[in-house]
């Protein structure tokens, strides 16, 4: 069976099937265990950040370099013709697309990555388009769940914090709904999961429930995915209240399952107390490191036909 992602684009998590996600995770595992420093030898990857980003850009570029590829690009739209001379995005990406073998793009406007993919003949990876999608973040989150639990089936997964505005939460819920897990949503009413996500879960018969505190369910969980409450979204008084209620404390972990792991897309503010960092349950820094392997897997699959389903090793 051929690699179904060869020469394709990664724009939205909704475009990926369960089989394709599993293939990416297996390749990520393989590349983590057995590095392939020459896999992208002589390949040039364009890293186009029309909006600044630290972790995403550095992990993408590290992923390319550790596979033996080369990176061209920019980390700030202010230095581009698009910004300085008023060139359209379409013209800019057509030119860059003629220089490189693949393209990853971050852009402040939603849909920019999909439009880019329609304008160039090389694979495009969405590294974040406004408030819309950031599919490789979801892939690395899934990989971290898979790595810590050895499965993506029948897990009890809690999402805590900002469930209304968090792009990473929405995409991860969308992806995990391809597997049979039980989902628990813990947030303030003002930051609750949007109805359209719940409707999609209902359609797929995914089990979920809403809770007001982490303690209600923490002892039955396999994964806690906690996010930062975004201060700019709330009134100051409300922010202070919510911030103090949805905090994960070490004292809450006394009766949890041994396999529980805590994930966070980072940056964290104070929603996870720092003394949890040294417990075996904390996995957020390993999760951040998994960004390299998840993005390596995506690059490897889009640019080489080496990996196929069931033949990832």
């Amino acid at each position, binding site marked *: 069976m051929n690699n179904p992602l060869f020469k394709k684009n990664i724009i939205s998590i909704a475009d990926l099937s369960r089989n394709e996600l599993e293939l990416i995770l297996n390749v990520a595992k393989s590349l983590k265990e057995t590095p392939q420093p020459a896999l992208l030898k002589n390949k040039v990857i364009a890293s186009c950040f029309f909006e600044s980003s630290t972790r995403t850009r550095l992990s993408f570029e590290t992923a390319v370099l550790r596979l033996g590829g080369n990176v061209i690009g920019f980390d700030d739209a202010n230095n581009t013709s698009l910004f300085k001379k008023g060139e359209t*995005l379409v013209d800019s990406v057509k030119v860059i697309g003629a220089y490189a073998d693949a393209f990853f793009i971050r*852009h402040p406007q*939603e*849909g920019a990555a999909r439009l880019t993919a329609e304008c160039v003949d090389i694979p495009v990876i969405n590294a974040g388009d406004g408030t819309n999608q950031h599919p490789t973040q979801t892939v690395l989150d899934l990989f971290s769940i898979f790595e810590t639990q050895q499965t993506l089936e029948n897990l009890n997964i809690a999402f805590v914090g900002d469930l209304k505005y968090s792009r990473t939460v929405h995409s991860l819920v969308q992806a995990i709904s391809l597997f049979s897990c039980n989902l628990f949503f813990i947030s303030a009413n003002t930051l609750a999961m949007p109805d359209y996500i719940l409707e999609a879960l209902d359609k797929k018969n995914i089990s979920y429930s809403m809770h007001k505190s982490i303690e209600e369910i923490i002892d039955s969980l396999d994964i806690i995915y906690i996010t930062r409450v975004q201060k700019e979204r709330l009134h100051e008084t409300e922010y202070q209240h919510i911030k103090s209620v949805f905090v994960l404390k070490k004292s809450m972990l006394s009766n949890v399952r041994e396999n529980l792991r805590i994930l966070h897309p980072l940056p964290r503010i104070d929603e996870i107390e720092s003394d949890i960092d040294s417990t075996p349950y904390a996995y957020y820094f390993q999760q951040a490191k998994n960004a390299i392997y998840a993005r390596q897997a995506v690059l490897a699959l889009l640019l080489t036909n080496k990996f196929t389903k069931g033949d990832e090793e």
Partner: protein
Amino acid sequence: MTHKNLQVEAIEQGSVIDHISPQQGIKILKFFQFNNKNEKITIGLNLPTNNGESKDLIKIENLFISNTQANQLALFTPNATINQIKNFKVVHKYKVKLPTSFIGMLSCPNSNCICRHENVKTTFYIQKNTTLKLKCHYCEKSFDRTFFNELY
């Protein structure tokens, strides 16, 4: 009798869009720019129906509604019927049907969508759950029809 004649007055050839939801007749005229043509147009608003409800109706002489236009009409009025008239006779009668997508017809209500900033044709996909929504191909956001300036 006079009232009835006004509603059913025959045209020699052209199209009759019947069973338009109330309040939609003027919007349809405006959206499809039927009023910019030189053909004779008759429009009826809030006409009584047999089941005691009301409807709008548009009759346009010498103009045949295309399939694309008929599908687009479904966004305004899902139960409308189109009658094609030739020699004062209905030669073809059909109900409008909601297509799976609309291309190049609507602009995205999301001001931060890339299609509002680049010269690209928009595409919206129809989503039918409890209410009808349109999902933008680019920003992937779904909108109720009332969000679209063109339809309001």
